[in-house]
């Protein structure tokens, strides 16, 4: 999460607070009548994280005693957490801005990955979506003997992953990392980025399969096409939320695919219908 916000050498989690200045940030929700919250309380350079579960250690922020589950910092990325129990285990966040980091992960864990058989499978899947036909992924020396991750073509050529279209890169890295991590919750920011409609259709089917296995997939998109496709394939399990962040206040409204379609028929694009819907 931190790396998505890092700017030049400015790091840390100050972005959690409205205009970097507010003292507190809070996410609340109600599930089956029960209220939950996740709270970030700022005491520079510390940010204390507490939840409605009341798990963690006691600490004092100003005059207030709080039970916090973890600590972040406004200016650095170090994250000490007392317990993972308060949070969901094994959550996987993906964004096209994190794909390069995905490469590093693949490189560092190649011995594990290569024996899972996932590379061959993903290479074949990608072949169906692009003009090139790939049979496997490899790590091999490139110019100057430096290592690169390559897609191995049916004709025996290698193409560096970084030289493929960004959609293909995103697809490969996402699929391989997912297979390794097997997360309970899969988050993907701006899911439509770099994908052509064929690839979008393919990942929509993949998301539906993931959800059918009892996992949760949470995606953000600015594309109505992507939202309609993914929700359409997901069927009843898929939910669409229109969200907005205005002056530090986050608002969300649940919409069904039918509502989105009806509004579209009426000439209303839900992405700009904030004055009517939120």
């Amino acid at each position, binding site marked *: 999460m931190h790396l998505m916000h890092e700017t030049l050498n400015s790091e840390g989690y100050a972005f959690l607070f409205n205009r970097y200045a507010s003292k507190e940030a809070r996410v609340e929700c109600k599930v089956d009548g029960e209220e939950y919250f996740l709270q970030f309380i700022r005491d520079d350079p510390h940010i204390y994280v507490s939840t409605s579960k009341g798990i963690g250690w006691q600490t004092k922020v100003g005059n207030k005693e709080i039970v916090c589950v973890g600590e972040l910092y406004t200016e650095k990325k170090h994250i000490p957490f007392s317990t993972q129990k308060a949070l969901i285990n094994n959550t996987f966040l993906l964004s096209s801005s994190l794909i390069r980091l995905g490469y590093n992960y693949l490189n560092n864990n190649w011995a594990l990955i290569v024996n899972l058989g996932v590379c061959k499978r993903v290479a074949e899947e990608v072949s169906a979506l692009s003009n090139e036909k790939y049979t496997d992924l490899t790590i091999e020396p490139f110019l100057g003997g430096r290592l690169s991750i390559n897609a191995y073509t049916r004709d025996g050529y290698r193409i560096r992953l970084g030289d493929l279209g960004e959609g293909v890169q995103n697809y490969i890295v996402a699929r391989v990392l997912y297979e390794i991590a097997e997360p309970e919750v899969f988050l993907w920011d701006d899911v439509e980025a770099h994908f052509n409609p064929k690839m979008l259709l393919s990942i929509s089917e993949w998301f539906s399969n993931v959800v059918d296995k009892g996992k949760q997939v949470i995606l953000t998109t600015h594309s109505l096409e992507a939202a309609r496709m993914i929700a359409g394939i997901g069927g009843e399990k898929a939910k669409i939320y229109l969200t*907005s962040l205005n002056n530090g206040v986050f608002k969300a409204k649940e919409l069904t695919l039918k509502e989105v379609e009806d509004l579209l028929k009426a000439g209303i694009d839900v992405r700009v219908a904030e*004055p009517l819907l939120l």
Partner: protein
Amino acid sequence: MKLYPLSPTSKPAVNIERISRKFRLKILTPEHTPLAGIIVLADGTPDDYVVALLSYRLNGEKVLGVVKPEEKRLGVFNIIPTILNVLREGKIAVLIDQENEDLNTIFSEVSRRLSGIGTII
């Protein structure tokens, strides 16, 4: 009066923006402000140009949403319930071509369609 395009990629929104640029008028607003009502374009172009010029002529601070439904002419009355569901307050104006029909015929057809969806003028 300013116009808020409820589908910024639609042809009428593009046309309104084009005429705004041509005459150096500020007609469309991207700001998220409460809408005083919605203008429904039943026939598209050149009605979008007319709305743009009317909007400029009726210069003011009120913001109205502008939509061009998929259906044309009297068919647009089928989407009125959808608009009523989301428009908290304000009026709906439907801009429709008279073509060869007389006003009474159009009005009674509109009344019939609206009563069919549980609404009256």
